[in-house]
């Protein structure tokens, strides 16, 4: 499941890689119609990546207690050598889920304008009764392995994220990687949740498109959650329907024992009923893949909302800077002209204690001037930041939209194909059974 096949080269606003999707909503100065192949600079052009295996390990954790955890084998191989016919050795290293989480958090903080691909779920949710909710369960581990591989492939094919050094080291340097990540100091750049929440409530003029996108993210999350929940319940029921048919197998067998001519037909029909009952396991396992594909987009919705909050934060900070500057300018004016337009503590104290000396006033004016200069700088910076963020975020959002539409469409197609296969199997089994019944 790789991202879009066709991308367009655009302005060099990014030092790393400049490939973006052309989209009808794109308002930047792109030249529509020029299409280049994506793989020019994406990491996937240079190396094959896979998460090949999973293993259980036991060790001491941070509080010196024994714990069992799973590690995943990441294998990489340079592409060029492979295409020449030689089979170079695979590079491989082991990583655990928490390291994937660390990588993702780093990417989130470092590239706030990117829709960062999600990780597979931490705990099994939306399970139906036969599915285990246990993280150690081999089926869960297997599905997680697939999800982690998908995550790496998504990052490696992202126009911006794939060039990241830390990501590259994640794939290639087993030891010391964690320290390297922490050394980037990304954690300090992370916005506190309180700060973000505050911004969400107080921002006055967020870009409308982001607000719409946030709304879309909410709706998407809600609808996919509901879909997954109902599907799990339906899977449970379907399991029951198929399995009870297995009881026919047993009773037909017993019945055939007391019949003469009817016996053979009944007995063989019974076998087909058993086969029918057994077929549901494969059917539902395939459906789990479909559920996993939906889950990825459920978590993507989260990434969209995260990006939206980041926008609100930058916008808010801009607004704060502007507000600050305005108030400082106002103070300057008041001080210069001696008029007190607004109620202020200064005004009160001067009324109570008398005006300040001309020297004091001069000092204050000078200070305000510097502050205003700084303030104007800051507004300029924040304005640029905001603009930059909006532009690049929106480009990635367009890329994401195309990817989403393509992927979900593919998912629906494969779901339909699954259902078709299930129907065909059903027809075959019942036809077989019917043949046996006809021989009764």
């Amino acid at each position, binding site marked *: 499941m790789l991202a879009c096949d*066709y991308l367009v080269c655009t302005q060099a606003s990014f030092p790393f890689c400049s490939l973006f999707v052309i989209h009808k909503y794109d308002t930047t100065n792109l030249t529509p119609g020029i*299409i280049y192949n994506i793989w020019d600079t994406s990491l996937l052009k240079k190396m094959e990546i896979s998460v090949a295996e999973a293993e259980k390990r036991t060790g001491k954790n941070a509080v010196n207690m024994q714990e069992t955890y799973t590690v995943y084998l990441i294998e990489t191989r340079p592409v060029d050598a492979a295409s020449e016919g030689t089979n170079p050795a695979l590079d491989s290293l082991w990583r655990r889920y928490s390291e994937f989480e660390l990588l993702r958090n780093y990417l989130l903080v470092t590239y706030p304008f990117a829709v960062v691909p999600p990780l597979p779920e931490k705990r099994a949710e939306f399970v139906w009764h036969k599915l285990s909710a246990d993280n150690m369960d081999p089926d869960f581990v297997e599905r997680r392995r697939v999800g982690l591989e998908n995550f790496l492939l998504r990052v490696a094919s992202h126009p911006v994220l794939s060039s990241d050094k830390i990501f590259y080291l994640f794939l290639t340097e087993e030891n010391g990687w964690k320290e390297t990540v922490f050394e980037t100091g990304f954690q300090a750049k992370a916005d506190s949740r309180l700060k973000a929440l505050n911004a969400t409530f107080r921002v006055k003029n967020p870009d409308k498109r982001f607000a719409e996108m946030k709304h*879309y993210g909410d*709706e*998407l999350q809600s*609808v*996919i959650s*509901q*879909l997954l929940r*109902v*599907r799990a*319940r*339906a899977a449970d*029921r*379907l399991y*029951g*329907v198929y399995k*009870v*048919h297995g*009881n*026919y197998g047993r*009773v037909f067998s*017993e*019945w055939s024992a*007391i019949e003469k*001519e*009817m016996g053979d*037909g009944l007995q063989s*029909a019974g076998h087909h009923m058993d086969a029918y009952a057994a077929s549901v396991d494969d059917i539902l396992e395939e459906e789990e893949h479909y559920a996993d594909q939906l889950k990825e987009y459920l978590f993507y919705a989260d990434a969209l909302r995260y990006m939206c909050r980041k926008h609100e934060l930058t916008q808010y900070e801009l607004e704060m800077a502007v507000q600050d500057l305005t108030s400082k300018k106002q103070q300057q004016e008041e001080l210069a002209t001696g008029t007190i337009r607004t109620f202020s503590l200064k005004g009160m104290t001067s009324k109570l204690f008398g005006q300040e000396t001309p020297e004091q006033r001069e000092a204050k004016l000078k200070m305000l001037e510097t502050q205003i200069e700084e303030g104007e700088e800051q507004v300029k910076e924040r304005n640029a930041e905001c603009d930059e963020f909006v532009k690049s975020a929106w480009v990635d959002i367009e890329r994401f939209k195309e990817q989403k*539409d393509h992927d*979900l*469409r593919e998912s*629906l*197609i494969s*779901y*339909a*194909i699954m*259902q*078709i296969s299930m*129907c*065909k199997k*059903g*027809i075959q089994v*019942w*036809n077989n*059974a*019917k043949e046996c*019944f*006809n021989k*009764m």
Partner: protein
Amino acid sequence: MSAGTPRALASSGQKPIQDIRHPLSAEESALSRSPDVLHPGGAGERDLILPNGTPVDTSSPTSSSSLLNRLQLDDDLDGETRDLFVTVEDPKKHVSTMETYITYRVCTKTTRTEFDLPEYSLRRRYQDFDWLRNKLEESQPTHLIPPLPEKFVMKGVVDRFSEEFVETRRKALDKFLKRVADHPVLSFNEHFNAFLSAKDLNKRQGLALLTKMGESVKYVTGGYKVRARPVEFAAMGDYLDLFTQKLGTIDRIAQRIIKEQSEFLMELREYGPVYSSWSSFEEDLHDPLEGVSGCVSNCSSALEELTEDMSEDFLPVLREYVLYIESMKNVLKKRDQVQAEYETKLEAVVFREDKKTSVPADVEKCQDRVECFNADLKADWDRWENNKRQDFRQLLTGMSDKNIQYYEKCLAAWESLIPLLQDKQEAKGETN
């Protein structure tokens, strides 16, 4: 005719006798087939054609096709010309001041001289069928009398006047009459004759009747203990016991499947619409998601049909056989009684053998009875086994057919969705 029930019964009115087509009539009529005789569901792919050219629905075990099957497959009837045809059709509700009840039209066509007319059509209610069966049991105690559908239904639980209940009952009554009509002895029973031809049954109930078998025999219930059931009859008894068990198990399994399917259906009915609500805030994905929603909805309808069919056609036939077996066990017991009576009387005579009296007439009569009973029962048993084989073959192939149809409907729905899902991509491909 009454109105008021949400699904009112068809009131097609009684057809004049001339309009009722004889199943074996030579006329090639391209007229629309009689809706009463055939299953309202319409003909399936595997149409059987009756000799007069009308296609037949093979889904109901009591339909004309079952009759045809017997003609084609039943060895007993090879060479035998059918001269008696009966059908039960056209249920109608009657409301009077005292009660409300259903009547069914019983149509007969025959060339038998025992009947005054070649065709009859009159209305009977369940009570009348019950009367007939009791009379048959009384007058032909050595024979296996086919069962009737359950007499009593819990008024609160089942709607006695719903279309489904009435149709299920009609099929069972039709089957009952056909089985009697097929029987070489029972079909000549005068009570049966009366049932088919007499305008008013009550008049004939009290009269002493001479049966074809001879005088009606009274059997002593209890009092005699049979020494041992002959092997063949013991085998029958054992078989019936085991068979009842198996039928009970199959009934439970079928019920459970219906229940699980109904619960699955409930989830599907919630599942489909979620795709619809998703499509409402998507652009590109709007049509594909709507398509999936529609597809799931089609599958839901197909599943609903399947569970309804199983409830209406499969379960009643199973239950009917359980009743059949019950009555057969009773006949076996009666046979035991007759044998016991004979054995007891014989023993009493043997005791006095030294007196060199000849075997008294009544003991001889007992012996005759035993032998007749055994012969009748054996013949009936063979016939029953044959019919059972066909009935179950039909029942189970019918069940398979219903499931196949369900999957075929779903398959068609999903297959038609694929091009819709792929549609945009091809368009994109072109512009690229």
